[in-house]
């Protein structure tokens, strides 16, 4: 009986993914995924920012703190930024942020930085799928914080 209940509970749990996408590449790539009817997990909630350069590490930490099981940051390929170099700044911050969350006890597999251009709908959708599956294996973020 107990076992059955646990199984049901696990089945009911759906990872919550906070996804920050830049307007020009990844948000457009996600639009194209829709237009192309590419089917991917429903777990991510996309928040549109102009550029990944806008994404302060605080936004990622806050999402994890508020209970996001995973955070996705998706932007233009390095060298292809609509604002020339905002994504390079995002990448530079990412390395630091990743170390910080690891030290705080969070499994770094809960966060994902990816590049998907406006024409790379499949890459965007695959990224959401990969992170969702990764996070599903890790389970709810719950008490991971140290």
């Amino acid at each position: 009986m107990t076992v059955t209940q646990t199984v049901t509970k696990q089945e009911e749990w759906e990872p919550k993914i906070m996804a920050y996408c830049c307007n020009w590449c990844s948000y457009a790539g996600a639009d194209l995924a829709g237009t192309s009817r590419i089917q991917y997990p429903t777990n991510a909630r996309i928040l549109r920012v102009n550029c990944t350069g806008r994404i302060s590490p605080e936004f990622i930490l806050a999402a994890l703190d508020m209970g996001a099981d995973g955070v996705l940051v998706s932007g233009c390929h390095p060298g292809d930024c609509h604002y020339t170099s905002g994504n390079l700044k995002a990448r530079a911050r990412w390395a630091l942020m990743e170390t910080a969350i690891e030290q705080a006890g969070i499994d770094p597999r809960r966060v994902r930085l990816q590049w998907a251009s406006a024409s790379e709908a499949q890459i965007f959708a695959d990224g959401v799928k990969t992170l969702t599956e990764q996070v599903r294996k890790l389970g709810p973020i719950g008490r991971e914080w140290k």
Partner: protein
Amino acid sequence: MLKNNEARIGVFVCHCGHNIAGTVDVKEVAEMALKLPGVVFSTDEMFMCSDAGQVLIREKIEECNLNRVVVASCSPRMHEPTFRRVVEEAGVNRYLFDQVNLREHVSWCHMREPELATEKAKDLVRMSVARAAKLEHLPVKKVNVLPSTLVVGGGIAGLRASLDIAERGFNVILVEKTSELGGNVVNWTHLFPSNQSGVDVIVPLVKAIKRNKRIKVHLNSKVSAFEGYIGNFGVTIKNLETEQEERVEVGTVILTTGFEPFKPYGYYGYGESPDILTLAELQKLPPSDILLVPSTGKPVKKLVFIGCVGSREPGVKGHEHCSRHCCSATAKAASDLRVRVDEALVLYQDIRTYGSGHEELHRLARQKHVIYSKFPRDSKPKVTVKNGKIKINWFDVLAGEPLEFEPDMVVLSTAMIPPDDVEQTAHLFSLTRSGDGFFNPEHIKLAPLTTHTAGVMIAGAAQAAKNASESVIDASGAAAKAVGLMAQGEVEIESTVAHVLPELCSSCHTCLTACPYGAISMNEEYDPPVAMVTEAKCHSCGTCAAACPSSAIVMYHSTDDQILTMVEAFLCPTPEAEGGGSA
């Protein structure tokens, strides 16, 4: 109208016919929205972008005294400008509108999971409502548009666009990287469907350009630097021969950078024999009444064309598209040359002679006994060259048997690909590119000539493989867009810029190095000097706001508060915000 006091939010959930409502329970979403804090009106409607939908928004703003509007429908990349205009017509500032993407991001990509899709839709609406409550009224700003256009690329599209603009009384600066105007078209001896030569078409255009005092042509030149914003661009033009640079200011830009004919090394023995050439190279052969075999100088007796070379190859990056001109060009060349040779074959995958007058060319070729033979998509013809002799083996789909032929000459109808410096151009003008490498328009149907860089238009093969007629249509369209901006003389620009709060700035200079546009400088009027944004130079990427260690930079319309409130609305909604009431 209420301004920044208590939010009175109206939520409009769109069915988009069956597009959204077929997957998402829009009624449930609208009902949930009504229970959210600040929401005073919520409904679902068949088509929010239709006249009826627009009228509904305006009426409800009036009736319910709404001061914030959320529309949950398609991508804001499509209809945000529409709805911003609608709310503004009803007296609500455009920056107090927010759009939820229920179609591209929910219903279309979760078609088999209606329940989870509805959950996602509710979350997104809850996030948007939370954001809407925090949105702030921003001024609508206008800037002057300088009355001149930069046209990049002197092919047929660039020439047409330049003339159209100059004839309407505006100045044009035409930059061409080669030593001549005329692009690819000037090389073609026989254009379809009119039977004119490229020279016949181009020369009158070039003469008209040279006569026109409003057009300044820069040959052997490239744009080396580009800055500014719509209406006021600073362009540096570099002469490739003298290395000299000149700086000019323009109000609008049209890119007509065109294509390059694909050199099909690795396909059908190209490069292994001088008698295997591309359609573009065939056009460049010296004029002669008799078609001669390049290697021997003897008349060609057996001629073969092969279609879709480097086009329509799924999975091959940059070669997945149909190059659109080749079927008609091949039909034209084959019917023209048929009388000069004993046998002419066209080996094809499919025939797409889609334009006005093009199908007639295909029929003409068949009437002249050009033999068309279809090969299977997954088994292309094999060309072997042995001791200078060419042999082709292929499988004829319609006959259902393998065939063999030994032609004197093989002509490959190759793809249009972007020029080799396309990446550089994309960076210069901040454009994105399609999978095939050409520039993306703002919207393929609604805005096919403008780009996401306001004030920069694209025309002709810069956007995708196109024939000369289509490129000219584009060019006149893009010219009309540019003239429209310049004739008005001023244009609205986004107010979503960064702003430094001087009292919080710790003078660390971090934002100065973060800004990609040099828009931040130090204001010496303060002691110590604090950072200051030159709004005209700010492109609103928000990199400075994320970099500021003192949280002294406010990114208007994308503030930390507006972002984090959405995260909170998704992850830890209050019972009230969940729509469950405050019990």
